[in-house]
């Protein structure tokens, strides 16, 4: 099978899926041209992420990584959420096919983008370096033989 049972479970029964009307921060990453966009909404109370929602346009693993990332940051402090790495997302899902690793990168970046938006809205200063996203102009993995 292409995906593990856990990936399929998060894809078919995504956690925290939906929009949030009163979000404190919204992050959107990816682009439709490449075939995946993640939008993450966070609600922050007492420095903790009290609620999180996501919407994703993308493949099965894009939806699954969004879903598990929301579970991994819910209830966590903002610094904890910022430490969420794409490797942690992949591990939590029990692995992803090699050509789907970029989905986990998007999930990490969606969380960071939502936090950045929260900081911006609330006038909280931060280190720009934390939010330097790699751009998503993917290299074509063209086979050349």
């Amino acid at each position: 099978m292409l995906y593990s049972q856990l990936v399929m479970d998060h894809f078919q029964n995504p956690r925290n899926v939906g929009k949030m009307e009163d979000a404190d921060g919204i992050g959107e990453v990816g682009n439709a041209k490449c075939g995946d966009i993640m939008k993450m909404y966070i609600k922050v109370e007492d420095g903790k992420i009290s609620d999180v929602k996501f919407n994703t346009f993308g493949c099965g693993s894009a939806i699954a990584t969004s879903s598990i990332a929301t579970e991994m940051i819910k209830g966590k402090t903002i610094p904890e959420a910022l430490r969420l790495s794409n490797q942690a997302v992949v591990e939590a899902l029990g692995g992803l096919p090699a050509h789907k690793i970029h989905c986990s990168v998007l999930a990490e970046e969606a969380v960071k983008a939502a936090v950045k938006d929260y900081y911006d809205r609330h006038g909280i200063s931060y280190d720009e370096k934390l939010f330097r996203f790699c751009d998503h102009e993917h290299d074509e993995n063209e086979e050349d033989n």
Partner: protein
Amino acid sequence: MKIYVDNAATTKMSQRAIQAMMPYLDGVYGNPSSLHTYGQEAAEALENAREAVAKAIGAEANEIYFTSGGTEADNQAILTGAILGERKGKKHIISSKFEHHAVLNTLKQLEKQGFTVTLLEVYENGLVRLEDVKQAIREDTGFVTIMMANNEIGTIQPIREIGALCRERGILFHTDAVQAVGHIPVDVKKLKVDLLSLSGHKFHGPKGVGALYVRKSVPLQKFITGGAQERGKRAGTENIPGIVAMAEALQESIENLSESQNHILSMRDRLIEKLREIPHSKVNGDLQYHLPGTVNMCFEGIEGESMLLLLDAKGIAASSGSACTSGSLDPSHVLLALGLPHEVAHGSLRLSLDAANTQEEVTYICEVLPEVVAYLRSISPVWEELEKGERKHVI
């Protein structure tokens, strides 16, 4: 319910083909190159199969060369076209933008070896225009290769007209007819093709076997070197069980052609009629010049792989031209060649029907698919932007 609507990818082997194959897996196991009775029995089966395949496409038996499949047949045909052209100092090749990778990547290799390739436009309807072929022909054009029916969208190209043009200009012409043979009438004489590729598993034969038709006067070039099999043009002990089964499957497909076509067409018409009711959807490719069984559609705001996975969970096996299913990050080159934007091409779905499908299955697909599309749209930020007017609908 389990529904297989991915027949353009591959088909289930027919019972007749399996039955025809069995003796050659068991009792008749000789090598056709051997002189003894075992070998001669196999050799006879091989020649009978060759005659059957030839008859099915209006060719002579000695114009048929068996290969390992459509890809090998395409490779050998193109290599032949290139070499024969080069001998006359003609290193320009004409093809189209939406050929199968077996053709496109072979042409890419030839470009590295100094050939020039013109890939013709296929326009929004997915049809090569005869006029464009005429325009593209140069002094040094030695070879033209245009597919008969496109594998993703099913459009049928004006092969007969292109064949006549090439014959008149003395240019060698190949068609990749892998999706056409066994599905629509194919007659190499009427089409005026010099080379034609076909593949067994696309018409209920086994995988790993195909054939190349080569018009008598065309000196086929060796591609796989070794023994003297296939009249010295394709080395390697022949896949007798596969060849026998392919020939049987092809005969069966052609015997049932008119009956199955009507059934498949009526299912396809119903699918299209119902599914195009889904808002912001589009049926891809010309609907008149079209294979009976292939339906290709795009649904805006969603991505194809997730659509396929949800359909699979509901028992429907289909295909998509999204990047995630192509193994690269770009969506299908076929859909891009039609001028569809990347984001729309990502949301494509191909349903390819067969005579074994039923109207009940079509009804079920028409119930399930709109739900899947609606669900994926409900969680799609792209759809949200489209609905809010922040992003423009393209279809």
